[in-house]
Each structure stands twice: as structure tokens, then as C-alpha cells.
């Protein structure tokens, strides 16, 4: 069964059609890039998958179920905005995640925090923007989930940390789980992706594997994206 499936999924905000009859399936064992220009519907799609928004039309299913309490235990979501309580220390966040998620691996989180030199006594409000983003990502990646939905996970971090994050995604690879990375930093993530979904103005314009694009067009996904979305 597909881990994530959308059937004619639509979402409208007033006059804006954020998603327009999107149908797609995401299978286990795949790392997928959700790629599109700003305002194309990437974040809306990920929010729908987490039940933070409800569809205007069609449906979205996680392992065959509509998003809800049950699916939240299977989905590890990194939102596009900071969401951790400012006053909390890293250690308290670890407790928090441990309480909330049965699949949270505290040792793994500790190891990553150490690697990235993040002190567990630090409070979120004392952190730089980049360190906050790293901390959020560490928490999200330390769960043993079926589906990781990462909304712009590498946008605000330096290139060395970016490499470490991508390495973490590779090492975390689980043939039963799927990872969806929404980003416009395509060149950086291209090598770790199996498949890409191009989305524009709420519609899917392309679904392909990375190597298929390279084979058929003789260019990288990054270059191909620039062609398709030339302004």
C-alpha cells in the first residue's frame, strides 16, 4: 500500500486555488523531492497530510487513513516555520518528544546534537536561526516514522550542516519508510532523491525519477527545473 496517497485533492483559500485536483502515490523506500516555485502549493500539501488543513475536495490518505491522531504517530513532520516553544531547553524538548512519540530515539537525537555542537542546556530563544532549524530537524529525524515530511529542511543552514543533514537522511534510509523533502534548493538535494514531483500553481506538472530526467534530457534536475519554470 502507498504510504501517502492523494486522490483529486483540492484546497481553496478564498479565491486562491492552492491545490487543484492533485493525485499522487508515494511508496515505501523512496526519497521524494517536492519541487516547485514559491507559492506553488508545497506547504499546503504537507499541511493537509498532517491534518493541519482540511481538503476542500478529494482526499488525502496516510497508509489508507485520513490524517488524524492515528496517522500522526506514523508521520514525522518538519514544518516550514519555527514551532518549538521558545522558553524550552533542548533537554526539555527531548523529554517532550519522548512523551509524545513512542518511536522517538533519544540516543540518536543526543548523538546528533553532540555532532552539531548543540548544548542540551540551551534554550530555544538563545539560539541562532540556523541552530533552531538544526534542533528542529534533529528532533524530527530522531523518530522512527513511516513517513517523513520535511518542509524546506536545509533552507537556513550552512553548507557543512547541509551535508550532515543529507548524510543523516541517507544513513536513516529505511526501505519501509518514505521521505518527502520540499525544497527549492534542488542542486543540493538532487543526489539523495529517488523521484521528484514538480508542482506549479497547485497542479502536478511532472513526476519522474532523477536519473530518468538526466537520461532523457541530458541535464540535472536543477537545470531542468530552471527550464520548466523559466520566468
Amino acid at each position, binding site marked *: 500500500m502507498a504510504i501517502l496517497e492523494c486522490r483529486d485533492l483540492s484546497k481553496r483559500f478564498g479565491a486562491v486555488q492552492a491545490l487543484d485536483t492533485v493525485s499522487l502515490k508515494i511508496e515505501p*523506500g*523512496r*526519497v521524494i523531492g517536492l519541487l516547485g516555485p514559491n507559492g506553488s502549493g508545497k506547504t499546503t500539501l504537507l499541511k493537509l497530510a498532517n491534518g493541519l488543513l482540511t481538503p476542500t475536495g478529494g482526499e488525502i490518505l496516510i497508509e489508507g487513513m485520513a490524517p488524524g491522531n492515528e496517522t500522526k504517530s506514523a508521520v514525522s513532520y518538519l514544518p516550514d516555520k519555527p514551532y518549538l516553544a521558545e522558553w524550552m531547553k533542548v533537554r526539555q524538548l527531548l523529554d517532550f518528544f519522548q512523551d509524545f512519540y513512542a518511536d522517538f530515539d533519544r540516543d540518536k537525537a543526543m548523538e546528533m546534537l553532540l555532532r552539531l555542537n548543540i548544548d542540551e542546556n540551551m534554550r530555544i530563544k538563545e539560539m541562532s536561526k540556523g541552530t533552531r532549524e538544526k534542533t528542529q530537524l534533529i528532533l524530527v529525524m530522531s523518530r522512527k516514522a513511516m513517513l517523513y515530511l520535511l518542509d524546506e529542511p536545509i533552507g537556513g543552514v550552512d553548507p557543512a550542516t547541509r*551535508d550532515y543533514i*543529507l*548524510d543523516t537522511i*541517507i*544513513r536513516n*534510509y529505511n526501505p519501509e519508510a518514505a521521505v518527502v523533502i520540499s525544497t527549492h534548493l534542488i542542486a543540493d538535494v538532487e*543526489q*539523495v*532523491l*529517488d523521484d521528484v514531483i514538480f508542482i506549479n500553481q497547485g497542479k502536478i506538472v511532472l513526476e519522474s525519477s*532523477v*536519473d530518468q530526467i*538526466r*537520461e532523457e534530457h*541530458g*541535464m*540535472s534536475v*536543477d*537545470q531542468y527545473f530552471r527550464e520548466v519554470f523559466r520566468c
Partner: protein
Amino acid sequence: MEWIFRSDLPIYSQLVERIKLGIVSGSFRPGERLPSVRDMAAEAGVNPNTMQRALQELERDGMVYAQRTAGRFVTEDMRVIEHTKKQFAEEQIRSFLDAMGKLGYRREEILSLLAEEKEEEHGNT
């Protein structure tokens, strides 16, 4: 070694070339056990499915072989390795001749330049 990929070719086929080069140049020795797919993927900074595909291609070419539980090993068949090495050499020579041709050199001139280069090398040692 750092893995840098060209943008105009599939990643898996570039992995195949890189690993073949590693085998013919001796970084991977005949009969040596290869690291796990996951470790090789992490080393190259690529998706494990892509590395898996590259290794399957190398298996088809006879450069590596799989043993059901023990993992993958570099071939011990020296003929296969020598043959692949020769292919790499031919490729290098073709692109060299091509580049020299573009500079306007004819075969005899190229050969005499190569001979001069060789003498210089001897002179230096």
C-alpha cells in the same frame, strides 16, 4: 575521495564508472568485499537505491559478484579487470587524440611530441 557528479548523465551510471575505475586502479582489490550499500551510498552522498542500481549494473558486467548473505565482492577474474582497464585506456586515448586533432596536430606530429615528452621525463630523472 570526493564524489562530484556531472549534471548531464544519470547518477547511477557515474557511480558505475567510478567504482569500475576504483577496481581497475586497485583501490578495490580483486576478491575484496565491498562495504554495504548503505555505507557506499553515504560515502558517495547518494540515495541508497541509486547505489543499489549501480552495483546491480556492475554485477551484470561481471565486475562484482554477490554472495547471498556475505555481501558483494570484487571479481577475481583478472581478464574482466584487464579488459575494463583497456576500455578506460582506449577512451582516454580517443579523447586525447580528439583534443589534439582540434588543435590541428596530425598523427605523426602527435607521436613525435609524445616521444619528446618521454625523453624529457627521462632527462628529469
